């Protein structure tokens, strides 16, 4: 198919490809989202936050074929969790556990005949808030056209994590999923996500964390070399609430992960971390925007990338401290380990501060394996490949350590070790 001539043609062509789900509680939000999308159009190369990542493959009509091949078992398969399975973006009831758990209600976005009042206050609402000051058209597209997803409402401490499992089997599946997660005051919930999902995957997760609530998110993107993904997390944090999100990315041809967090209550804490390893035809983009709009909040961004053989890593991270957000503690680090001269890391750290009593720091580095350390290990008999792996894991450790749960951390480290061993040069 020939590429549409102009930007609006492209956007309209993409809109025409889909049908806006009619009826039910979400219809108004979807109509609004469609209007938002029409106002901004789909992302273009010239857009400020798309300079390092070509949007074409994510925006074009129809997904490029991606053959799904992997030999690894799903990463959280052995964890005690409530499993919710999607095949090529469609809920699979048979493969899923019963959607019931103490202190948690779980509904399907696709069940339009139920009127889910609480979700109305979140669906498309946090996404809309996250469109300013930077437009996120792929998220508006998602809100308008999402065909499935889960609506999770936690009223207390969830007895076990909810694991969202995304299977991919059809060669050109083009999935749009939208999850809404609401944590009431004092609630505590862990969400796990993993799986390739589709040939092309557009996912939005809106997370509303009320005062004193704790949200923990661990995601693994991988097990599929060819898939494309654009994901957004929009989070709103109340007073003394905590939001922690970690993403492991291995393989995948193109991944763009946006994380937009607004700290709206005093003393809230937001940590976002990512570890990614890329080899060859691999492009990974972490774009983070954290807004401090309350006092004494803490935010941390820790992103580590190991790249080789032409792989490209992108980090665009911003801390915006609004007027009055005194005693803000903001930290941001993005680092890449380039294992050869063909790998590339592009970083754009940004601080924008309108309060006068804050501590914000940021750093970004690119480097190779430390020759001295490598020689030291080899002089003790550790072969070159294993020594490189040890140093690579050490490099990623700061990001991985952001995962609070030790069992989850071990699972992630094991995955990384396996990947490194398979890709050992």
């Amino acid at each position, binding site marked *: 198919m020939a590429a549409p001539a102009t930007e609006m043609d492209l956007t309209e062509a993409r809109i025409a490809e889909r049908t806006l789900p009619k009826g039910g509680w979400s219809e108004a939000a979807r109509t609004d989202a469609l209007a938002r999308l029409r106002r901004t159009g789909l992302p273009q190369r010239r857009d400020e936050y798309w300079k390092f990542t070509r949007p074409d493959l994510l925006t074009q009509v129809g997904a490029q074929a991606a053959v799904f091949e992997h030999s690894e078992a799903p990463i959280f398969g052995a964890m005690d969790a409530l499993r919710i399975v999607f095949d090529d973006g469609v809920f699979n009831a048979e493969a899923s556990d019963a959607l019931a758990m103490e202190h948690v209600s779980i509904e399907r976005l696709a069940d339009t005949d139920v009127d889910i009042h609480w979700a109305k206050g979140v669906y498309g609402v946090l996404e809309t808030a996250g469109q300013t000051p930077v437009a996120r058209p792929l998220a508006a597209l998602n809100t308008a056209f999402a065909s499935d997803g889960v609506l999770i409402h936690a009223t207390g401490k969830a007895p076990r994590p909810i694991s969202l499992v995304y299977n991919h089997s059809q060669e050109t599946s083009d999935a749009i999923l939208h999850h809404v997660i609401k944590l009431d005051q004092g609630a505590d919930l862990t969400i796990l996500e993993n799986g390739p999902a589709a040939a092309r995957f557009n996912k939005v997760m809106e997370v509303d964390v009320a005062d004193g609530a704790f949200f923990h998110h661990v995601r693994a993107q991988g097990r599929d070399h060819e898939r494309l993904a654009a994901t957004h997390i929009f989070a709103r944090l109340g007073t003394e609430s905590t939001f922690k999100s970690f993403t492991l990315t291995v393989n995948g041809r193109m991944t763009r992960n946006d994380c937009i967090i607004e700290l709206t209550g005093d003393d809230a804490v937001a940590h976002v971390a990512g570890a990614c390893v890329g080899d060859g035809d691999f492009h990974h983009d972490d774009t983070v925007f954290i807004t401090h709009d309350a006092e004494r909040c803490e935010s941390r961004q820790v992103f580590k990338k190991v790249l080789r053989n032409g792989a490209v890593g992108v980090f665009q991270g911003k801390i915006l401290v609004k007027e009055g957000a005194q005693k803000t503690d903001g930290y941001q680090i993005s680092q890449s380990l380039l294992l050869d001269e063909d790998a590339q890391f592009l970083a754009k750290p940004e601080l924008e501060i309108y309060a006068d009593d804050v501590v914000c720091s940021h750093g970004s580095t690119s480097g190779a394996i*430390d*020759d*001295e*350390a490598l*020689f*030291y*290990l*080899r*002089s*003790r*008999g*550790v*072969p*070159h490949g*294993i*020594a490189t792996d*040890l*140093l690579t*894991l*050490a*490099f990623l*450790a*700061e990001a991985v350590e952001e995962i609070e749960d030790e069992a989850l951390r071990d699972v992630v480290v094991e995955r990384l070790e396996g990947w490194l061993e398979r890709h050992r040069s």
Partner: protein
Amino acid sequence: MLTIKDLHVKLEEEDKQILKGVDLTVEAGKVHAIMGPNGSGKSTLSYVLSGRDGYEITGGSAELGDIDLLDLEPEERAAAGLFLAFQYPVEIPGVGNMTFLRTAVNAQRKARGEEEMSAAEFLKVVRARAKELQIDAEMLKRPVNVGFSGGENKRNEILQMAMLEPKMCILDETDSGLDVDAMKLVAEGVNKLRSEGRGFLVITHYQRLLDHIKPDVVHIMADGRIVKTGGPELALEVENNGYADMLAEAA
């Protein structure tokens, strides 16, 4: 054990000859010391033997038993039984000391076709050896050499030596950065490892380390060559008179 013949080495990047014909043989069971002024090539010799990058061998040979060391990768030299205790042990943030030790021990065993050590056995052995060197459990858990004091650094080197059980140990200025007590502790560790089947080459500026690790043979190195060889009394001579007289005499 270690046989070095007419070894010539220059820096890879510059046209600078560092070793200009080193001849040295260390027999199994013996401790040889190399002393010499700054810039004489002592540390270069240790690096070249262990396989560090940046040097070019322009002549001569170095063999461990009947293995030609200079043809091997650093890890192969280690598996063949060579060990270098670094003057400046390298900090490796993020790699736990235990993980590192166990990986090294088992990699060497694997390379030699021996059975790997089980986790339980390894733990038992490492605890016992660490105790002798007054290395506590907390230090074993820390990342390799990160935040270690000078004494901890060197004790950790000796612990590695004890765990890897090499045939030929090279100690590169192990006394640097140590106070008297730490030096004694390190020397005790080394002395415990002295055995009939093991050779030692101790590189040092000062005689004081040799009070604790008593050498069988002392070599004086200057300007890339061994210029004088003798018994332990040679070290005392250096201590009393410095190198100047000795070098003038050798010239």
